[in-house]
């Protein structure tokens, strides 16, 4: 499709939805913009169910518990509603590991934050051959476009 009409129709759609959004009356639940600061989470990975009931509240809180493996197991929790993440994290936090066009490996950028289980710790060039052969699907999520695979190009062409 040529670009102009496409952009134009998108714009129309947006304005229409905006109108609808502003006119429909909604009694639904609204997340706070920020997790209440008075909750005083500390700087450690939070276990939501320490303070929230698993059921009956606005979320299935157990799904958001930041267990020791959360750094590699948050895909469903995040894909469902990022506004939950946004209560406590800014997008720049996610960009450490997820970015279209970041050069430094997460574990290098935050090298001294050893408590974080960032992916690709240590020498990953060697290990990646094995991980990549066994589970290429898991790499595609972050390296599956030309920009995010630029560091791969010298060897993979």
């Amino acid at each position: 499709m040529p670009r102009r009409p496409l952009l134009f129709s998108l714009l129309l759609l947006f304005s229409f939805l905006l109108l609808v959004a502003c006119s429909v009356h909604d009694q639904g639940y609204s997340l706070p913009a920020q997790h209440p600061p008075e909750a005083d989470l500390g700087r450690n990975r939070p276990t939501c169910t320490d303070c929230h009931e698993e059921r009956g509240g606005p979320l299935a809180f157990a799904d958001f518990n930041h267990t020791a493996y959360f750094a590699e197991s948050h895909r469903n929790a995040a894909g469902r509603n990022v506004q939950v993440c946004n209560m406590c994290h800014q997008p720049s936090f996610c960009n450490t590991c997820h970015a279209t066009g970041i050069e430094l490996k997460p574990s290098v950028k935050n090298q001294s934050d050893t408590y974080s289980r960032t992916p690709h710790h240590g020498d990953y060039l060697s290990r990646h051959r094995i991980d990549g052969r066994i589970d290429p699907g898991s790499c595609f999520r972050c390296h599956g476009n030309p920009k995010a695979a630029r560091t791969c190009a010298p060897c993979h062409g």
Partner: protein
Amino acid sequence: MNSPCGKLVRRFGFLCGVCGLLLSAPTVAGAMEVRLNSQTLLLFMQRNTSTSADASVIPLYEYLQADIGARSTRGLSFHFYGWAREDLNDSDYYKDNPDGELLYGYLNYSRPFNNLNLRLGRQYVIGGLANNSIDGLSLQTDLGPDFVLSIYGGLPVAFDTTAGRSGDSIFGGRLVWHSDSLHEVGLSYQKTSNDGSTEDQRLGLDLTLALPAGVNLSGRSTYNLESDGFGENFYEARFALSDFNFRTFFENYTYADYFAPGKQTPNPFYVLNRGGEAQTNFGGDVVWRMSSDWEFGAKTKFYTYDVNSSSAAYYSGLITWHGQDLTQIGGEVGTMQGDAADNKYILSRAFFYWDRPAGLPLAFISGDLLYAAYDQPIYGQDNSFFASLGAGQRFLDDRLELKLSGDYSSDPYFDSDLRTMLVANYRFDY
């Protein structure tokens, strides 16, 4: 302006400009909240470049983040994050890489009423099958108490390197139905085009169900409309039982449909999508927080394939001791056991982070040790060793943090590699 200094000014000029603009913003905008965050990294290392072996490479990185507007309440705000790099030694190590990137820069408007959220500019869209960086517009809103709609459109940032941006587009959206927030079904769609031709077009179905006995089931299936097939099915169940958190999952990928068959799919994925392969993995993890001090975890993942007959399994266990604040000592041992000899390794890691070490004028000391052993040598070496030691201190009411770390690595790629890094984090609030 060809001196290193002049270059620096030029390279970081853009970021400085943004900085200046932002600093003058409060006078313009009155009582608006402004937060700046600058992270400056200086690395020293030796790398082979096209002109010399073991050349000193001294990249200076600047990561700048700015947020203007209220954070705790809703309304209008602006968010910016980007980085730039300059090699102070002028080696050609980075000659094929860009010297910086705008990661995001968008205006955000939100209000509690209808959970309306509107974003304009470079941003990440996440939700359902979307996990993309776009230059464009996105909108999320409730449609009555039972539905949530989000749509977005613009230019895909991922393709801005391929033959310019004309003819590039990305658009999509997600419609969610929820009876309450514990049960959800979402339908998402995305189409990307590069230089006028369709790259990728997918449909996604995601769901979240609160089952009896505290079990939460969630997952997603993605259908590739270009190649006509399910690329991905991923489902997991989680539940918490006293101090235990359990998770089991099942996933399945059909390469020809998952690794987008578009022309811009980079290697090695483009090659992989030709082989008619499909992969099915399952496994789980459990984490036991025995007390506020001790945390134990175990994880397994099994891999099987349709075409390739060799399967694989990964097992790992970890222990962490938590002290005051972020103080931690931890260890982890894992092993990848593929049927093929070149698919086996053992990986072990030990780390500590000592927050506000008693008696020392430091904010923290941290250390990391990693050892990997491969069944089959890679370039004649069957192991990798990595060690890192770091320390930091904070100044100016904790607004400025300085960190120094040194990393050593001996592995198949580097006989003996030493890298040092100096980091300055500066936080600025109006």
